[in-house]
């Protein structure tokens, strides 16, 4: 009887969204434990911060100040360019690009299935309007997307998970590709690129915004190796994610703006409810 129930549950979980609430309910029970387990790791981080020597803090402070100066000057330039861009787009009667809303979340240090690349974050339905498929980025690039949103925590699939595919384009020339996770740390694979594709080692890959999950233009990965073997139908291209997938403690949740497209119609509006 229980076996039958398990099989039904698995089928429902795999094919549809009905058992989401069951999972969310159990996740509420598990959350305190996950929180407790991640306390020692957080405590270590905290002691490291508190016990840091004065010199190292001063060094860090100076570094950050310098970086802040540099970023600030770049930001001024960027504001100007953004205004110009908006103006030009208005002239072209094209759609406006609107900034995205973000929320900072913290990772809980707990392990999940060792054969998949997933993380748990400490934000859930209670905190904000999180949704399934919501993109997750850190300061350096795209990290992944949410797969399960529970009341107090959520699970995200990283871009290196073998079940994850990320639509990207080469920043240099706009060549589109799909970056699929390999399951091993820090390695993506670009699939179905012809042998004569214009792609080189060191090319920056940014999200293309196709697929309606990730907003366009976020840096995703850098090409690590291009192997064009004429006897194979496609080139073997591997890339390395730019985000600190295994080191980041804080991540940003992004709400992609939905008003980027002309005429007010948004072909991506379906994605918010349905994308797994």
């Amino acid at each position, binding site marked *: 009887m*229980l*076996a039958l*129930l*398990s*099989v*039904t*549950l*698995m089928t*429902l*979980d*795999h094919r549809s969204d009905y*058992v989401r609430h*069951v*999972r969310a309910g*159990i*996740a509420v*029970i*598990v959350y305190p*434990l*996950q929180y*407790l*387990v*991640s306390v020692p*790791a957080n405590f270590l981080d905290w002691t490291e911060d508190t016990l840091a020597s004065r010199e190292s803090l001063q060094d860090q402070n100076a570094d950050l100040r310098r970086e802040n100066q540099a970023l600030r000057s770049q930001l001024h330039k960027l504001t100007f360019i953004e205004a110009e861009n908006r103006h030009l787009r208005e002239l072209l009667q094209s759609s406006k690009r609107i900034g995205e809303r973000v929320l900072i979340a913290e990772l809980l*240090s*707990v*392990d*999940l*299935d*060792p*054969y*998949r690349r*997933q993380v*748990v974050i400490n934000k859930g339905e209670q905190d904000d309007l999180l949704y399934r498929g919501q993109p997750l980025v850190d300061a350096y690039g795209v990290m992944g997307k949410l*797969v*399960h949103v529970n009341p107090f925590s959520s*699970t995200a699939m990283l871009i290196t998970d*073998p*079940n994850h595919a990320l639509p990207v384009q080469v920043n240099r020339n706009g060549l589109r590709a799909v970056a699929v996770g390999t*399951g091993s*740390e820090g390695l993506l694979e670009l699939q179905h690129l012809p042998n004569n594709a214009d792609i080189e080692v060191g090319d920056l890959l940014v999200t293309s915004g196709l697929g309606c999950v990730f907003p366009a233009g976020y840096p995703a990965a850098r090409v690590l190796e291009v192997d064009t073997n004429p006897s194979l139908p496609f080139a073997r291209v591997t890339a390395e994610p730019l985000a600190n997938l295994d080191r980041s403690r804080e991540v940003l949740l992004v709400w992609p703006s939905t008003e980027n497209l002309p005429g007010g119609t948004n072909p991506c509006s379906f994605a918010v409810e349905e994308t797994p």
Partner: protein
Amino acid sequence: MNLTHHHGGWLIVFTFVLALALSIIPLPHILELLRPEWMALVLIYWCMAVPSRVGVTIGWLVGLLQDVSRDALLGQYALAFALVAFLTLHLHQRLRVFPIWQQALSVGVLIMLECLVVLWIKGLTGQSPGFWKIMLPAVTSLLFWPLIYLLLRHVRRTYNVS
């Protein structure tokens, strides 16, 4: 009598909570692949020691917890753990009189079955990590069984769980 009955119940719950904590505690990647199936080990012990209280239903519920904590397909570990509990209930009288190394071997086989069920389900949903890799927890669980057994037996005798 009724009082000790209740007392024991909380102790069983506590050991399961501890096992769940052990199975989500962060480890380096290499050790992560070798992590014993703590939940299954504790489940097997209680099924063997107090078969009247811990059985297939408890196993199924515990498996469901494991599913959510590992973010697996809901029901995957539940099915595997229910199977393990069922087999242990069938074998508990024989397991009790085995010497400890023989017990460990049987437990290894049970955990291997559990891993196999999980592997099948993963294979069906298209995310198979490979046979030998997924059998590693069975081997480490086998090695950890004597420890778990002696510890839980001590706990059971001290607090008179029955």
